Structures are given as structure tokens and as C-alpha cells.
């Protein structure tokens, strides 16, 4: 293999940082979900990369579980966005403040 482990990990760090930027800055609820997806994918990339270089199949198995759970999370998140949109007619998270004390 031509690529070293550290290259994959650096790409994964970049993806993590972009995802955290999206979660912290964006006020659109769907764009925040995009950021969460990127963070989850950087974690999966790390799992598979270490699983290739150790080598062990457990990392890949765990990445498969993680992808499936991420799919469930996106389904619930988008349903929450739809409910919030019907209540507030907006998807700006600064407007969702019924729970604010």
C-alpha cells in the first residue's frame, strides 16, 4: 500500500474540524445535521483506517454498526426538523425556544 496511516488520519481530522465548524456556526437546522454527518464520517474513516493497519476485522465491524446507527439518527433528526418547521414555520434554530426557561 502506498498510503500511510497518518494520511488517512489527517483527512479525518480535517473532516472533523469542518463538521464542528458547521455545528457551531450554522443556524439552519438541516445544515447542522450536515455537520453532524461529517463528524460521524470522520470517526468511521478512523475506525476503518486503524482496522486496516493493525490489521483486525473488528474496526470494520464497528464501522458498519456506526453507519447503521447514524442512519437511524438522521431519520429521527429530520423528523424533528419537520415537526419544528410545522410549529414555527422556520428552520432557524435561534427561533426554537419554547424550552427556554
Amino acid at each position, binding site marked *: 500500500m502506498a498510503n500511510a496511516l497518518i*494520511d488517512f488520519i489527517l483527512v479525518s481530522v480535517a473532516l472533523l474540524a469542518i463538521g464542528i465548524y458547521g455545528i457551531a456556526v450554522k443556524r439552519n437546522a438541516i445544515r447542522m445535521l450536515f455537520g453532524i454527518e461529517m463528524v460521524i464520517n470522520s470517526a468511521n474513516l478512523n475506525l476503518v483506517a486503524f482496522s486496516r493497519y493493525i490489521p483486525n476485522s473488528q474496526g*470494520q465491524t464497528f464501522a458498519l454498526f456506526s453507519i447503521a446507527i447514524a442512519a437511524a439518527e438522521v431519520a*429521527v433528526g429530520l423528523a424533528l426538523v*419537520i*415537526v419544528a418547521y410545522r410549529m414555527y414555520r422556520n428552520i432557524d434554530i435561534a427561533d426554537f425556544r419554547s424550552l427556554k426557561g
Partner: protein
Amino acid sequence: MVDAVFLALSVLTIGSAIAALEIRSLIYGSIALMLALSGVAGFFLLLDAPFVAMFQLSVYVGSIAVLILFTVMLVRRELIFNKVEDKRRRYAGIALMIVIMLGIGTIIIGSGLKTMETNSAEVDYKKIGEDFLTYYSPALIVMALILASSIIGAMTLARREDVIDGQRAD
């Protein structure tokens, strides 16, 4: 050293991840997100994990893309193109991104991972299938239950009839 395929994949992944957050239209943003996730699937192929790559493609590009596009289409038109954000918050976010990249990057480059190379054979994906059905079968059942319950929960959340339109608390 890295090869050309790796370089192209990383440019595609990072570039479309930035585009997904910064493009004005939410529809093009979700398409860019799918490009970024396909790039991650390409990395999985480079890492000799074709099973995970196909799973990633079928779950993310197949189903989550459709979910996100339908949700975007249910939202009002001007909200799709609207971009409200603080300037100061944005600069703080960019600073946070650079701090995370440089901080974790220097820690990882300084660690002993740089010398880690492998000559061993790739993991056989038949072994993953066997593991799923033998050692991990309780976890597989729990995962199926989680998926089913979350999908039922999402459906009941999304089609609640008692949510009145335009109900605002303030």
C-alpha cells in the same frame, strides 16, 4: 508518499464538505454532502474495505440523500436560499476549526503513528459476515431493534396531527 488517487479523493471530500456548508442553496448543499460521503466511501475502497464502502454508498448516498432531499423540499422556498448568521460567530467558528485542525494535527504528526506501515494481507470480508452472524449476533439484533424503533418514532413524530401550524410560544 501519497498517490494521485488519494490526493484526488481528499480534495473531493474536503472540498465538497466545505461546499455543503457554504453553498447558498440547500439542495445543492445536500448534493455536495453526498459527494463528500461518496469520497469517504472511496477512502474505504482504498483501505481494502469494499464491504464497508458498499454499505456506506447504499446507506448514505442511497437512503439518507433521499430523506434529506425530501425534507428540504417540504420546507418553504425562501428558507432554502436564506442564510442568516452572525459575522462574529462565523469568525469564531473558523478560528475554532483552525485550532482543532492544527492542534490535533500536530499531536498526531508528533506521535508514533507516522511510522506505522503494513504489509499484511487485507481483512477478508467473508470473515466480517461470519462474525456478524456468530459473535456479534446479539449486537446485530439490538441494532435491528434500534433501527425499527427509531423509524417508527420518526414516522409518528412527522405525522402528528395535533401540532398546530404557526404555534409560537413567545
